[in-house]
């Protein structure tokens, strides 16, 4: 296959990790909660799925059941983290930045403890092929495009449709923009915040699971997962809080991030070792530029939700 096409497909497959992470974060942020726990949640999602696969990876269950149980395990642990976060920030009205950072500390640590106890020959070797259906037997980069990749695209489009085309989405955005007003028209603010955070966390957790089991499919994958959680938060800004745009953004990010290792394969581009870190810096620099430009243009639909990061207490004025 053409080298550039191969690279594009690899960027897309890599990008699916970010699609999950940032779609989950967008849902949470649209409810007014800046969840810096996303890296921890993604890690826990990965750990949850692998934990289940570690138990059933060699069993004689039909493949589709193994795939589904793995996904459920991933969702369960990630949503549990989402519950911790929303209990602390919604019900107990704790500071969101601090809670998120504590959750990341906790999640990344616990994931490392759990993963160091699991056996990669059980949770990875067999199930990997099942998750990579239908391209499992291809030799090119298309092999990393399994069901979880397509699920990522579908979830992002669906999330965009719900947010901007349905009444539920309208209510959710109202909660994120001005919870007091939403409360006044009878929207159950607490319910929306909980639901958005937990569902968002579940989606983000799948990203971690996808990265470990499908895209990287290696025993050491979990060690590098945290960095991509932070990159997912960056992608939210890049995508201007619109889930479908994360699909395009994720390809750009995937491209920028892996271009440094890919570019050495291109004969007519001469790149020194020192250029690699600079190229890896690009996703973050581009994100900063997007953040600056969107704040200068100051168009209302491209801004963060107005009450992002603030707790809501009904009796406060």
């Amino acid at each position: 296959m053409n080298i550039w096409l191969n690279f594009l497909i690899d960027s897309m497959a890599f990008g699916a990790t970010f699609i999950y992470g940032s779609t989950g974060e967008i849902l949470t942020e649209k409810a007014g909660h800046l969840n810096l726990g996303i890296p921890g949640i993604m890690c826990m999602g990965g750990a949850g799925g692998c934990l289940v696969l570690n138990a059933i990876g060699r069993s004689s269950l039909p493949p589709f059941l193994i795939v589904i149980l793995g996904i459920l395990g991933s969702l369960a642990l990630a949503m549990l983290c989402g519950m911790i976060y929303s209990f602390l920030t919604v019900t107990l009205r704790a500071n969101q930045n601090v809670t998120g950072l504590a959750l990341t500390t906790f999640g990344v640590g616990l994931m490392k403890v759990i993963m160091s106890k699991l056996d990669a020959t059980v949770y990875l070797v067999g199930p990997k092929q099942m998750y990579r259906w239908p391209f499992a037997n291809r030799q090119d980069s298309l092999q990393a495009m399994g069901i979880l990749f397509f699920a990522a695209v579908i979830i992002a489009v669906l999330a965009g449709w719900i947010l901007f085309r349905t009444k539920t989405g309208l209510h959710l955005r109202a909660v994120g923009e001005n919870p007091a007003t939403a409360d006044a028209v009878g929207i159950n603010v607490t319910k929306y915040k909980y639901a958005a955070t937990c569902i968002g966390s579940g989606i983000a957790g799948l990203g971690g699971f996808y990265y470990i089991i499908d895209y990287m499919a290696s025993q050491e994958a979990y060690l590098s997962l945290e960095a991509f959680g932070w990159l997912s938060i960056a992608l939210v800004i890049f995508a201007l809080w619109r889930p479908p745009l994360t699909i395009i953004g994720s390809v750009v990010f995937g491209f920028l991030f892996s271009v440094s290792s890919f570019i050495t394969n291109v004969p007519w581009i001469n790149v020194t070792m020192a250029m690699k870190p600079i190229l890896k810096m690009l996703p973050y620099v581009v994100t900063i530029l997007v953040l600056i430009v969107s704040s200068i243009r100051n168009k209302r639909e491209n801004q963060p939700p107005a009450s992002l990061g603030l707790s809501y207490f009904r009796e406060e004025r």
Partner: protein
Amino acid sequence: MASVKRHAEAREPLMHLSKRASISPVRSWIIRICAVLLGFLLCGLIAFLLIEKLQQNPGRIGDFYYAFIKGAFGTSRKFWKFLRSTAVLLCIALALTPAFRMRFWNTGGEGQTLVGVLGAIAVDFYLGGKIPEGLLLVLMLLAALCCGAVWGVIPALFKAKWNTNETLFTLMMNYVATYLVAYFLVVWVPSGSSSLSKLQHGKLPTLGNDYLLIILIVLALTIGLHIYLNYTKHGYEISVVGESIRTAQYVGIKVGKVVIRTMILSGMLCGLAGYLIAAGMDQTITTESAGGQGFTAIMVSWLGKFNPLAMILTSALIQVLNQGAAQISQDFDVSGAMPSVIVGIILFFIIGSEFFINYQIHFRGHSAKAGKGALK
């Protein structure tokens, strides 16, 4: 406090909340200590799930808790290490505090500290051995302060001019800093291993032992910052901007100027922490030189209610947990990631306990009783 539920006779909810007007310090500390104890209890339970040696021999649970004391206070070397790591963490937390007090969420402590280390090490790398040691140390300090200040002021400029979201901006700057360090490591160590061996020059003088000087510097900084924030005009302006930007504008405070000035200070102090790491401890640099402390410092500062003196306690608590958990991973042969799990759990409980200090729960039918919610 009088309950505010007179009007809701028809369908009274099971409970409702109100903000406390005030709470006695004793009661608030009882709530906090209860929270930490509950956290430790949960840590014990989680340990049973994760640590095989504990499952085989449940009697060792005493050892598990004793490790927290042993880890930080077991030997005099451990104790000094504990004091020094507390000091460095405290230094970064102090640096972030002025920004937090004006509600500028500087999540970039990690990056600002890292470029501080980078500045100091760069001077050391190029000038070490060529100029007198004393001059070298001064130049390293200046470089670290400048680098930190630059890294801090960039987001502040955009915040002041266009109200760019500072939380996300400073967060991204952390990673730019990480890869900047990676770049210099490739340039400085052409062999490709990218690990810079310990430099021979540019080491802070020792005061009795390797640890004391750093501790004294940070102690002086703590007192200095306490005075700056509470007893100077600058400190007052920071508080006013933090409380209400409109009030600040009304009384003629130039908000943009205060934001930029405070972030220069914040970045500079992070740079100082970087200098302490570079010249006082490591004399080399990796992309992990700040080691996540920039993020931990955010929690230290918040837990200490942005009060420099209280932050001594909170940073000490975090380091007791860190060193204790490291001791546990050694004694019980578990993954080195154990400290993060334990710190995370205890933090959840402390974060949650603030609610019971700030709010009061009124149950249906009962007269309001303060502190009741502490049993979570």
